[in-house]
């Protein structure tokens, strides 16, 4: 992060296939017309690109504008110049001091790096919940043979989890597993570093993002799993 501070958003923002730098923007307004939150709290994707072109990075970094974006990418889907608007927004977010990252996303990133999941759920709690939910599934008629597969090798799908599914909304897990079972699909859940939600994406923290992604890759290699299921 230190090095990048010398560079501007213009330099840092990734390019799309046609190598369209922000300068190509002709301020046509396609992004703003399509953005679901244009006008809310002064948000306007065209304006953000405009400020980037003029090198007004610091202003952007200090404002709440980059944090209003939902990253839905509707803007760049239609941008005639192919400008990577969400990439720009992420780049700005990444330039924000970590202690200024709003809400709990940066904290989540830190917890994830530390504990393997965004909410810092201890692994004994995780094991208990997975076992418990697995039993719940097996109680139903036709699912008697079901057992939650942990760290199973050669499964077809690696099933990473959204922390919410584990923590508060585990009835959704029931649905998923029932579907897998009914479809006779082999899957497995990693016993540690199971977090499927990479908050580094939202906070613009590429390094952490890379670490989290790396863990999943590691799982897949180790367990020889072919496919990945991601909760987002």
């Amino acid at each position, binding site marked *: 992060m230190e090095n990048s501070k010398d560079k501007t958003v213009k330099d840092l923002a990734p390019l799309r296939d*046609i190598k*369209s*730098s922000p*300068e*190509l*923007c*002709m*301020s*046509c*307004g*396609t*992004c*703003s*017309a*399509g*953005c679901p939150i*244009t*006008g809310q709290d002064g948000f*306007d994707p*065209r*304006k953000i690109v*405009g*400020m980037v*072109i*003029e090198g007004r990075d610091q202003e952007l970094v200090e404002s709440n504008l980059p944090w209003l974006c939902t990253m839905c990418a*509707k*803007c760049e*889907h*239609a*941008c*005639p*110049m*192919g400008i990577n608007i969400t990439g720009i927004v992420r780049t700005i977010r990444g330039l924000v001091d970590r202690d200024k990252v709003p809400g709990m996303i940066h904290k989540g990133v830190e917890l994830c790096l530390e504990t393997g999941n965004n909410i810092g759920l201890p692994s004994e709690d995780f094991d208990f919940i997975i076992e418990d939910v697995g039993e719940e599934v097996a109680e139903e008629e036709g699912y008697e043979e079901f057992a939650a597969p942990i760290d199973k090798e050669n499964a077809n799908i690696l099933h990473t989890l959204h922390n919410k599914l584990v923590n508060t909304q585990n009835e959704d897990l029931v649905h998923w597993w029932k579907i897998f079972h009914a479809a006779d699909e082999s899957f497995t859940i990693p016993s540690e570093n199971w977090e499927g939600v990479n908050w580094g994406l939202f906070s613009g923290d590429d390094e952490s993002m890379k670490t989290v992604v790396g863990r999943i890759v590691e799982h897949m290699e180790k367990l020889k799993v072919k496919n990945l299921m991601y909760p987002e």
Partner: protein
Amino acid sequence: MDRKFSTLVAGAGISGVRAALDLAELGYRVLLIDKKASAGGILSQLDYQFPNDHCGMCRTLPMIDRNNGAQFCLRKGIFHKNITFMPGCEIETVKGTPGNLSISLKRSPLGVDPEKCTGCLSCESVCPVTVKEDFNGNLSQRKAIYLPVPHNIPNKRVIDFESCTKCGECVSECPTNAIDITKDVGIETIDGIGSVILATGTELYNPDGVDLYNTSKIKDVVTATAFERIMSSSGPYKGKIQRPSDGKEIKKVAFIQCVGSRNLMIGADYCSSVCCMFALKEAALLAEKTKSSDSAIFCMDLRTFSRDGERYKERVKEKGVRFIRSRIHSVEKDDSGNPSISYVDADGKQKSESFDLVVLSTGKSQNLTHPSFIENEGVFGISETPDFKEISDSMINSSFASSKAIQIAKEYDYETKKSSTQINDDDPKLHIILCSCGNLFKENVDLTKITEDISRIYGIGITTIDQACSLEGWSELKSIIDEKGVNRLIIGACNPQIFSTKLSDNSLLTEIITLAEHISDTESVDEATKSILSEIASSIGRLKKYTPQKVRSMNISKRALVLGGGISGLSSAKTLSDSGVPVTIVEKSDKLGGNLPFISDETVIKSIKNLIEKVSSDSNIDILFNSELSSHKGVPGKFESVISKENTELIVQTGSIIVATGGGKASFDDENERVKTTFDLSIELMEKKVDAKNIVMMQCKDSRVEPFNYCSRICCGKALDNAIKIKEQNPDAKITMFYRDIMAYGDIEKKYTEARRRGVIFKRFEKEKYPEVISNDNGFTIKAFDFILNEDIEIKADLLVYSTGVAPQVDNLEKTLKLKTTVDGFIKEVDFKFRPVDTGKEGIFICGLRRNPANASEAEKEGVSAAQRALRLLNSEILISSGQVAHVRHSICSRCNACVTACPYTARFVSVEDRKVYVDDISCQGCGTCASVCPNNATIIEGFEEKGILDSIEAALG
């Protein structure tokens, strides 16, 4: 070797038609082909053209030697003695060398023999295949056997073999055995062709399948062409302006600009040039037709760079149409089923609005290229790439291409003998031939009564033949003509167009009556008979009184006068000289080249210098320096001009005059050396580096506002060039360009993209609020409002560059030559669209900056185009006048001169010597306005003699 055609013109759109006519008018035979089943191109779908919101296409037709072509609406088809039209054809390969090209054509079968088809419709009624009608933007349906263009004549059906199931129903139903569904695509080779003109135009971008526009899900999202069809009375809803989904009247339309254009993501780094004016025109028409005024055009720049574009836009605005600077993301459907769009308004707020209809201003389709044979020698493209152009630009480019084809035609001696048939002017001897069309007329009309009545009242004989349209019928018809020794003939048949073309070479005066129009299910035999009788009587009345058209000829002063030695004048002179016409150039200054010192493009400079050299060394071109036209008289073909040159006067006799006196930078004065004009900067940049660090460029300085309310076309391109050059020299220079609309039409768009890529910053301002410039010791501060950042901004500059526009030369020629000017002082074309280099005074043509702002290559093309028009007059020593012109019976003329005032072509003049009114046969187009203002018939129009018309009215009511 068959050397029938000097030129093959591929593409029968307006460009192809222009090129074909250019050649045909000079006596060269042309083979005109189109891959479609009909001629007319995109214009056949458009009923209206900006800026007068009507068509005017017929003004393209020849005005000299009119006898060789049909004198009717060009949208019906193209008919000229020297033009052969072949539909359903595409070029496969071109081999050989200019003057002897061998061309293989892919011919798709049309399925119907046009010689036999009577347009009776029985085939359509039995055809089981129904498909969407592309002619109407897929908003209506047609059969697999159909009429490709409803207004074309002859109205022959064709088969769309892509959807035809070859069931054969139509074949057995056809009463004249005209249908053949067995033929396959064939290859035909034509040899001995001099050159090829490629006028295949381009295709429209197809927005179907783009998820943003939802054309498949929302029926009320249509393309601009489809909307044009909706507004057309021959369109899918017969002119009722209703929307496709539910038939609701359309009142409020959103036009989405740049659909398929100016979009790097789809490889469209260009502006399609015409869509802005197209949308403006459609919005204006809708407002006019429905008296509604709530439509909106969503655009980035509104590219109103053509003649009158700026003022036209203002007129459209006055009608209540909104121009909203927001490119549209996508079209959705609202709760009531109306298409709805979101946009950002001027305050940066997002708004959502529903419309009755959304029109997509689709540009040209991307990634189109010319076929590889464009590289062959002797093949000329109308444009460098398949492109859309404003009609006037198309016409100019067409003539530019045809002039090259003419050089080849001339070199290889393709010219046909000019002839004009003298019609037998013995006493009228009439005969009538009626076609009984199988049994159709026998059953529905009392032919005996007709024969008896005509003989009793008029003493004229009638012969009935069975199928006049068949080969046997045709020979029977010819033998009757010979046998009876008649010189005037009335033919009654069901499909008269066949005869009008077949008989055109004959020395007969012919009237053709459409019998079929008198027969319908609701009419009795008596009524049909009566109706036909009176039509025959009416024709007799007229035919009897026709004065046979006299062929007059006139010797031409085979020399052209070119006023102005600038780019357009030089290219004009060169083209004329290459065609064997001696030229006199009159140049005000002491050198040639005009605006050459203000051109910064090396290749252009080189080509102009080359042109200057060629013209200077051309023994066929006299150049008079330091001279001006002081007075002028005479008629086209024989003008007499007085040139004043350093206190002496000399008289030049020429057949034609080309006005190319040009124009230049609009006047602009600023003492400050850190203020420059875009033009001056471009010259400076050729030699040295600009060392300024903060450069501000200001577009539209005193331009596009009254009193100079026009776009100068070239400033944006030049400013972009400058910006790119500075960035090349010094990437760190900060360049800000203030603009109203970047007029980067066509491929100039690429420069705009390039400038942005290099970091030039663009800030838009509104017409009403020109950025404020405060000059101080260090340079300037420019204060403006930034619409994107939504805030007031101040930009520092150490160099300020103004785009000041182009102004026409002040030379008084409009008075000397009695030409019309625009309010801005440019010389006005008689028809901006279809005759862009004609002044309206025959023999006098206009090109270059004296006509309209243009860049060097545009001016060069205009010059060639003007020369090409002049060649119609200068190509031969003798000019044969057309028939149907006015002449004056001096013995009874009271010289009230009402006719002189009335003539739209200034073809009439009062002689200074004898005060009599004379008609110049070449300029006269036979419109008859003079005759109708003449109270005592002292003016007569050949072929439309009052007595004949009165008799025919009397007979019609008899």
